[in-house]
């Protein structure tokens, strides 16, 4: 489905620059949910932009369904870290945006948009403007808008990073539900360990400067991941093992940032 091979991204001049992403390789199979986890500043967004075709890598290849990525790929849907609703469009017209681009008649695209609005739990808010919604609701609109384009690969860059803890948990549940309904192939970038463990088939741990992949962790918990699974010892063990990896990276990041 997605294949990332030896992707490296350097910013600045060769003599004086930052290697944000260093020789990263991984694959995602159809239907798989993969999370990339790493401390802030380790190059996650950079990698995201490269995979989304929004920015060319310094070297290496990204291919989607066997075709090399040279720009935004129609099979790939992106949800950005920053909330990105179009403020002049109502919820339903935001969600219907990709369908409108495809030339779908108004009635039909609104019907489809309503389906995705319901999926993210925003039924009844179709006619509202983004300015009338909370941050979490706006991010859900963005998710619905991306899903409406029916991507075969969904990319999400810390979609919950700007939200408060409670909203995060609720939204995490929502994504889990969506994942179970659509069996959507997904690459989620996050810095929340529980989120990664709860949602993913595999978690990739990224290191801080240079941004490399340190470890691939297969999460062998049964689906659906109900509250029972989340409170099980296996879940706790997976979280603890990832936390040990991440603590090392995060403290290294903090030490470097501190001087």
């Amino acid at each position, binding site marked *: 489905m997605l294949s990332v091979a030896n992707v490296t991204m350097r910013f600045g001049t060769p003599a004086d620059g930052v290697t944000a992403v260093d020789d990263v390789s991984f694959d995602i199979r159809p239907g798989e949910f993969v999370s990339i986890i790493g401390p802030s500043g380790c190059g996650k967004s950079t990698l995201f932009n490269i995979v989304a075709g929004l920015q060319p890598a310094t070297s290496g290849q990204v291919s989607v369904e066997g075709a090399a990525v040279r720009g*935004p790929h129609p099979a*790939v849907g992106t949800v950005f870290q*920053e909330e990105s609703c179009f403020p002049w469009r109502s919820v339903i017209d935001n969600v219907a945006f990709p369908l409108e681009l495809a030339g779908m008649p108004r009635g039909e695209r609104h019907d489809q948009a309503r389906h995705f609005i319901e999926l993210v739990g925003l039924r009844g808010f179709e006619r509202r403007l983004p300015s009338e919604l909370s941050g979490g609701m706006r991010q859900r609109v963005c998710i619905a808008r991306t899903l409406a384009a029916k991507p075969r690969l969904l990319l999400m860059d810390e979609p919950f990073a700007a939200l408060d803890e409670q909203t995060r948990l609720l939204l995490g549940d929502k994504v889990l539900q969506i994942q179970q309904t659509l069996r959507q192939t997904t690459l989620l970038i996050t810095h929340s360990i529980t989120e990664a463990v709860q949602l993913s088939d595999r978690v990739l741990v990224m290191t801080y400067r240079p941004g490399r992949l340190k470890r691939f962790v297969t999460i062998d918990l049964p689906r659906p991941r109900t509250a029972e699974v989340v409170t099980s010892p296996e879940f706790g063990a997976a979280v603890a093992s990832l936390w040990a990896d991440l603590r090392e990276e995060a403290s290294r990041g903090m030490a470097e940032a501190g001087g």
Partner: protein
Amino acid sequence: MRRIAPLFGLLAICLLIVLLQFAIGAGIVDEYTVPRPTAIAAALPRLLAEEGILTRFLTTVAETFAAGAAATLVGTGLGAALYRWPLMRRSFEPWVAVLAAAPLVLAYPLFLVLFGRSSSTVVVIAFASALPPVVLQTVAGFSAVRPVLLAVGRSFGLGRAAEFRRVLLPAALPSVFTGLRLALMFGLINVVGVEFLINLGGLGALINDLSERYDLPGTWAAIGFVVLVSVSLFTVLDGGERWLQRRR
């Protein structure tokens, strides 16, 4: 409360007019500088019947719209070009800002030589004064569009033209509208001003005529009429803006 606020404003103006009436009556304000409001109101029918104020009003409005429309078309185009080519923007934006601050109307003799004593001179000067704010507001509006919205557009595969039409323009519309508002405002001020200066055409020329004849109530009534014109112009513009906001 929101409904009452405009009423309250109107009431305050009425009160001021009544106060003025009494101040003139009491001799505090000289009647040969400011005529009584009642005398000004009484002059209005005369302006309608004898001075053809309605035709002059139409002339002024037509000239203002011509200048405003041209400034809008050319200004948003130039603004978009300055946004699109950063080098051009760095070279020309400071000059546009200088032009926006310059009282171009003072150069009217030059325009008279170029365009003659005609409606063209009025429209061209008004256009030149209205253009810079439209350009500046358009560039500012485009530059303020959040980059992530453009990234969303690109991720959905929008090309340059579609990005402009579906993301940049609607996102910048409020700012562009501020430019249009300024364009009409500067357009109207300059149209009336130049009409006055070259004594040709619409309401400005009428004010010139009346004041030369020492018809003070008539002059003040005509000035009041210009104020009414500008108020109605902006009411129309407001309606248009709301209509476009809903449709973008």
